[in-house]
């Protein structure tokens, strides 16, 4: 804590000013976007008027959460090569979205993931299941971001005590609800775009500064990082974190699978494909996103190894045991070290970027989950499709307020949870509950309502139950309840078991049901998803 605390007061004012500027700018954009938001298509899908490039930036903004920026840089700084393994899974996952999901989803759906799942099934059971899993995944993800925000503020601004953490969580929650209620998808998309540009610019600046210290020779940087880590060559090889035992190896495989199959099932990512006019534009958004996100993860390599070499694991661990402050600490070091003006400025800039990152991601999550509540649960299940467009949008805004409130309250109680585990859990639930149903609906003619419903619930329940009985919740020092021990599932990530369960349940549910799928509806879905005929 010493390194950060010493100069915390110097940069605090600057961080607050920069962050205040970001909040004011984005609120201005939100009000402007809100004035142009008239109907449901504007509120849920930003009027479908964004270009592939704009949406690609917005997708990157939605995806590059605080967990990726601060978490991965910290993981690399402390665990060396094993931290890099996360980035690879997070990036490769985009090929699933590109090849199998983005274009058909854009063509056959309207506002939510459930539009595609319910296309040829019985509306109410399928929409209920999809709405529930959308909200569960989003809340896990929201919790991770908001708990992270509380911890970060305390560390970066040098304020200690639970009160500061609590007020940060409340403020972040209130702001995200304002963005969503006033700006809808149009406002939220522009917030993502601004944030993505800031994050890329900040990361690129630090990357150049790090590489410049090592004559732009990556090998020299790696050597310095390995020396400073105290672990030598092992720091640059896999195994420091996950190679300890057979269980930790299986855990790593489980995590890897969840990351790769989870991305294309994350609700706040899926709704992004509706903000562009055509399937081709949806494809272009993913292509841009792959380029931007890939570049970003390559730069986090330089940040992580740079932090290991220049800040050193001792100072990083002293500030935050999980390494979450490695990137801001590196910024201070690159600017000239603690106490210097340059250090204070660069630290303030990077801290403000980190807050902007959290704020934008939580807004995206709130929008996706409130859209699913309004469009799937309220309009189609509760009102049986008889709600007017106005009533539906109004219910989405109320849902945003309610989800914001629930997220704030849960975050206040979940302060001790490990944020990385929560994010990985959100990916595992998305991969187990959403992706199997989505793929079966699009590509398997025989798939039925019973199959869809059993796949969603089996994936959802198995992943959540396995986590409850895993070392994340009890039986380990870092667990939610470290003093209790009721765990029987050895892995921290449930993906290895729950994803196959999701697929199997969809298959068995279909085979066992007597329902005959309607071939005409499948023909319509197929024609629409491949050609865009009749797409909204």
């Amino acid at each position: 804590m010493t390194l950060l605390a010493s100069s915390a007061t110097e940069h605090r004012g600057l961080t607050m000013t920069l962050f205040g500027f970001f909040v004011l700018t984005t609120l201005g954009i939100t009000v402007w976007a809100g004035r142009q938001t008239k109907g449901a298509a504007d509120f849920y899908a930003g009027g479908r008027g964004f270009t592939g490039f704009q949406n690609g930036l917005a997708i990157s903004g939605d995806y590059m959460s605080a967990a990726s920026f601060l978490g991965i840089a910290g993981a690399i700084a402390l665990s060396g090569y094993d931290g890099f393994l996360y980035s690879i899974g997070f990036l490769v996952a985009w090929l699933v979205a590109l090849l199998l999901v983005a274009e058909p989803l854009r063509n056959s759906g309207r506002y939510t993931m459930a539009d595609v799942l319910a296309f040829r099934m019985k509306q109410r059971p399928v929409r209920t299941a999809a709405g529930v899993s959308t909200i569960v995944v989003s809340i896990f993800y929201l919790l991770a971001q908001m708990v992270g925000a509380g911890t970060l503020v305390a560390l970066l601004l040098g304020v200690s005590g639970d009160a500061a953490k609590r007020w940060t969580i409340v403020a972040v929650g209130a702001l995200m609800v304002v963005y969503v209620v006033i700006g809808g998808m149009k406002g939220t998309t522009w917030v993502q775009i601004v944030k993505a540009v800031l994050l890329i610019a900040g990361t690129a600046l630090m990357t150049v500064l790090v590489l410049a210290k090592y004559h732009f020779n990556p090998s020299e940087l790696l050597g310095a990082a390995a020396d400073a880590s105290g672990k030598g060559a092992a720091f640059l090889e896999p195994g420091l974190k996950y190679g300890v035992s057979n269980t930790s190896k299986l855990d790593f495989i489980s995590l890897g699978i969840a990351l790769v199959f989870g991305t294309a099932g994350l609700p706040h990512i899926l709704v992004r494909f509706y903000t562009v006019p055509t399937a081709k534009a949806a494809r272009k958004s993913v292509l841009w996103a792959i380029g931007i996100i890939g570049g970003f993860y390559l730069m986090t390599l330089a940040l992580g190894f740079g932090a290991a070499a220049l800040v050193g694991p001792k100072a990083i661990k002293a500030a935050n045991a999980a390494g979450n402050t490695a990137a801001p600490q590196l910024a201070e070091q690159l600017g000239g070290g603690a106490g210097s003006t340059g250090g204070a400025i660069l630290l303030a800039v990077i801290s403000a970027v980190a807050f902007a990152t959290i704020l934008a991601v939580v807004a995206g999550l709130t929008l996706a989950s409130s859209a699913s509540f309004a469009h799937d649960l309220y309009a189609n299940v509760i009102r049986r499709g008889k709600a007017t467009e106005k009533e539906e949008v109004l219910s989405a805004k109320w849902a945003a307020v309610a989800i914001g409130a629930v997220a704030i309250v849960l975050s206040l109680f979940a302060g001790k949870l490990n944020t990385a585990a929560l994010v990985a859990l959100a990916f595992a639930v998305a991969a187990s509950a959403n992706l199997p149903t989505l793929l079966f609906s699009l590509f398997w003619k025989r798939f039925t309502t019973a199959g869809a419903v059993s796949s969603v619930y089996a994936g959802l329940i198995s992943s959540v139950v396995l986590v409850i009985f895993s070392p994340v919740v009890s039986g380990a020092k870092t667990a939610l309840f470290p003093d209790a021990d009721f765990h029987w599932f050895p892995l921290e990530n449930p993906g290895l078991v729950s994803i196959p369960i999701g697929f199997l349940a969809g298959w068995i549910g279909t085979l066992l049901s007597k329902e005959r799928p309607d071939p005409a509806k499948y023909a319509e879905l197929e024609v629409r998803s491949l050609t865009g005929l009749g797409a909204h």
Partner: protein
Amino acid sequence: MESPPIATAPADVQLIDDSPEFRTLRRSFRSFAFPVTIGFVLWYLLYVLLSCYAPGLMGTKVVGHINVALVLGLLQFATTFAIAAWYARYADRRIDPPAAAIREAHGAVVHAPRESAE
């Protein structure tokens, strides 16, 4: 700008679905997307398994402090970029033109969303 929802009768859609043009389009899409997906998932799993179970191989130095593990990791990035670019090219040639042709042929019945803004 919302285009009107599908106005085609189910029978017409069935006709499109059965037409040779559409079957070719579907084959072009599936024969690319399915095998390539299986390919990159296996390639990624191979990398994950090597990281877990072949530390000796992964730790072998290639140049300076750069080892096999780092090279394989960067190769995952390279193949991801390459597959994305490959698919973009393939879709431009083999998926977009036939899809547009089918849309135009049935455009009188159904309004496709605007293509202009990409």
